[in-house]
C-alpha cells in the first residue's frame, strides 16, 4: 500500500455561512485576505514537504472559485512541489480536462513538471465536480466525450516525437501539435482517472490506468473496484491492486480522543460545503435517473452532514489513535477487496498546523509500516498475477 498525503488548501476564515448562498462559484473574494492567504499557502507547502520527509507520496488537486480550495491550478502547486521535495511521487488528481479549453497546454504543463521532478509525476485526469461547469463556463452536456477527446489528444502529444501532428476533433482543433518539452518518463507519466460510479470505469480499466474513488465508503467502493477487476479479467489482462486508489479524510492522534477531535475538524470539508441546487446539479452532468432524484431533494455524495461516528462507520473518515486508525483501514481494505493506494486528506478546514504535522508523523511512524502487511486482495482478478 502506498499512501499519498493531500490537503485541499482551504481558506476557512469566512463569515457565518448564513450570510452567503454558496461557498463555491459566487462567494465574493473580498473574504480572501491576501495577508492571511499568502501565509496559508506557505504553511500548506510546509506540510506537504514534511509528508515527503517522512516517506509519504504527495497528491494535489484543483478547484475553482471556491474557499474550499485555494488551488485553481494544480500544475502551479505541483511545479513548486517538484522543486522543494526530493523523494515523493507527485500525483495531480487531477487535471479537469473536460473543462480546460486547451488540452495541448495541459500536455505541456505536465511535461514541464515531469522534467522538473526528474520523472516523479503521476498525472490524473478528472471529470471535475458539477459546480465547476459554472467557473469554467463549459457545459456538462457531452462532457464525457469531451473528456476522452482531450485525453486522447494529450496522450498523443506526449508520445509523438517526430514533429507536428494535426488534430481536428469534435471538441478541439490543433493543426500543429509538437510539444516541447516531452515528458521525462517514457512513454509518458502514469495516468490516473477518478471514477465515482461503475459505469465510468470500463475505459479506465481497458487502459490499465489507476482509478481513484473519493469518499465512496464501503459498498460503492467495492462495486467500483469489483467492476475494474472484472473488466481486467474479461480482457484476460493482469490486475494489480496498485491500479486502485481510495480517498478519505484521515486523522491520527496520540489518543482516540485526540484522533476523533482532529477528524471532527477535518469534517469541515463535508459540513462547510454549502452549495445551492443550481450549482450542485447542472444540466447534463448526472444521469436522468440521478437528476430525477436530485429534483426530488436527494442529497449528493459531497453533501454530508452526518456525525463522525457515522462517517467512520461509512468509511469516509478514518480517525483515532494509531491502532484504531490501522484497524479502520484494515477493515475497509478487506471489505472492498483491497487497493494499493490510500489518498489521505490529512488537513482541512480549521485543522491547525501543529495538529496536521503530528497526524502526518503518527501516520508515517505508527500506521503506514503496518499497512504494508495488509494481505492482498482476497479476490485476485486473474490467476496469472
Amino acid at each position, binding site marked *: 500500500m502506498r499512501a499519498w498525503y493531500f490537503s485541499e488548501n482551504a481558506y476557512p476564515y469566512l463569515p457565518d455561512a448564513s450570510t452567503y*448562498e454558496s461557498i463555491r*462559484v*459566487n462567494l465574493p473574494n473580498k473574504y480572501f485576505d491576501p495577508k492571511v492567504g499568502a501565509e496559508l499557502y506557505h504553511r500548506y507547502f510546509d506540510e506537504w514537504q514534511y509528508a515527503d520527509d517522512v516517506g509519504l507520496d504527495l497528491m494535489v488537486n484543483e478547484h475553482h472559485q471556491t474557499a474550499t480550495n485555494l488551488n485553481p491550478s494544480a500544475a502551479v502547486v505541483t511545479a513548486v512541489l517538484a522543486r522543494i521535495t526530493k523523494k515523493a511521487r507527485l500525483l495531480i488528481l487531477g487535471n479537469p480536462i473536460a473543462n480546460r479549453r486547451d488540452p495541448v497546454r495541459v500536455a505541456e504543463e505536465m511535461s514541464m513538471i515531469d522534467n522538473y521532478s526528474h520523472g516523479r509525476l503521476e498525472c490524473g485526469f478528472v471529470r471535475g465536480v458539477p459546480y465547476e*461547469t*459554472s467557473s469554467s*463556463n*463549459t*457545459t*456538462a*452536456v*457531452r462532457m464525457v466525450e469531451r473528456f476522452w477527446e482531450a485525453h486522447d489528444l494529450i496522450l498523443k502529444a506526449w508520445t509523438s516525437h517526430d514533429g507536428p501532428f494535426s488534430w481536428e476533433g469534435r471538441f478541439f482543433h490543433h493543426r500543429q501539435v509538437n510539444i516541447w518539452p516531452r515528458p521525462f518518463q517514457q512513454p509518458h507519466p502514469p495516468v490516473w482517472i477518478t471514477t465515482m460510479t461503475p459505469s465510468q470505469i470500463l475505459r479506465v480499466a481497458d487502459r490499465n490506468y489507476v482509478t481513484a474513488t473519493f469518499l465512496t465508503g464501503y459498498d460503492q467502493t467495492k462495486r467500483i473496484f469489483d467492476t475494474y477487476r472484472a473488466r481486467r479479467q474479461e480482457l484476460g489482462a493482469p490486475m494489480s491492486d496498485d491500479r486502485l486508489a481510495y480517498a478519505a479524510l484521515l486523522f491520527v492522534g496520540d489518543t482516540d480522543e485526540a484522533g476523533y477531535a482532529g477528524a471532527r475538524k477535518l469534517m469541515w470539508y463535508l459540513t462547510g460545503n454549502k452549495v*445551492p*441546487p*443550481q*450549482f450542485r446539479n*447542472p*444540466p*447534463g452532468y448526472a444521469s*436522468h*435517473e440521478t*437528476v*430525477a432524484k436530485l*429534483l*426530488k431533494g436527494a442529497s449528493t455524495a459531497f453533501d454530508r452532514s452526518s456525525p463522525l461516528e457515522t462517517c467512520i462507520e461509512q468509511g469516509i473518515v478514518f480517525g483515532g489513535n494509531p491502532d484504531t486508525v490501522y484497524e479502520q483501514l484494515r477493515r475497509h481494505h478487506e471489505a472492498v477487496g483491497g487497493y494499493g493506494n490510500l489518498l489521505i486528506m490529512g488537513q482541512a478546514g480549521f485543522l491547525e498546523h501543529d495538529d496536521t504535522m503530528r497526524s502526518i508523523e503518527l501516520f508515517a511512524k505508527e500506521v503506514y509500516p503496518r499497512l504494508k502487511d495488509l494481505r492482498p486482495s482476497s479476490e485476485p482478478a486473474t490467476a496469472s498475477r
Partner: protein
Amino acid sequence: MTTLLSAESSLTIAGVTLECVQRGQGRPVLLLHGAGGPRPSAPFMDMLAQRVRLIAPTHPGFGNSPLPDWFDNVDDLAYLYLDLLDRLDLHDVILMGFSMGGWTAAEIAIKCTHRLSKLILVDAVGCKFKDRETREIPDIWALHPSEVNKLTYFDPETFAPKLDQMTDEQLQMVARNREAAAMYLWEPYMHSPKLLRRLHRINIPTLLVWGAHDGLATPEYGRSYCAAIPGARMEIIEKAGHTPQNEQPEAFVATVMRFIEGK
C-alpha cells in the same frame, strides 16, 4: 435514451427522427417550442388547433425526439426545419417560435422565407444587443430554481412546474429537457453573435408577442429585437411572464389569430 415513436406521431427528416404533433385544419402553423420542452396538452394548443393546422415538432434531445450525436446547436435546428418545410411541401406557413424556439424561427427566417408567409416570435431569445459586460438574459443555471421561476412567470405559484407532484418518469423527462436546453443554449449564452447583423434579411410580416412581466427576455429586450426586424411590430400580453401562451392563453391566441388572419 431509446425512444419509441409511433409512425403517425413522428417524422424522419434527413436521418433525424422527430416526435411531431400535427393537429387541426387550415393555414399551416409550424410551432417551435421553448427550452422547457413541448407542451402538447397545453390549452393554447387546443385553442389554436381549432383554427389552424398545427405542426409542432419536438426538437432533437427534448421530449421523445432522439438526439443525433452530431447535433448540437440552434443552427442545426434551423436547417432541420427548413428540410421539414420542404419534406411536407408546405406553403404560406406561419412560423411561430417560443423563447429558444423563437430564436430558431428567426434563424430560419434569415436564411430563407420562400415557404413562409408570416413570422411570430414569442418572448424570443437569440440576440445580443448590449456590450460584453451586460448580460441581457439572466443566467438561469446560476440562479436558485425558485428565482428562475419568479423571473419566468407572472404567477409562479400557479404556473411553475410542480416537481414535487411529478412521477419519476416525468422528472426524468424534465432532466432530459434541461440537458437538451443546455446543449443548445450554454455558450454563447442564449444567443448567436451573428443574428443581430442578419435580422434585416427577414422579409415577411413579423409579429413579436411578449409577456409584460417576462424577467428572462424582458419587454425592453423584445423591443430591441422588434426594432431590428424590418416592419415588425410588437404586442404585449398583460399579466404574463416568459410564457404568455400558458399564463394568458385566450389573450395570446386572440393576439396571434388577429395577426394570422390579417386583421
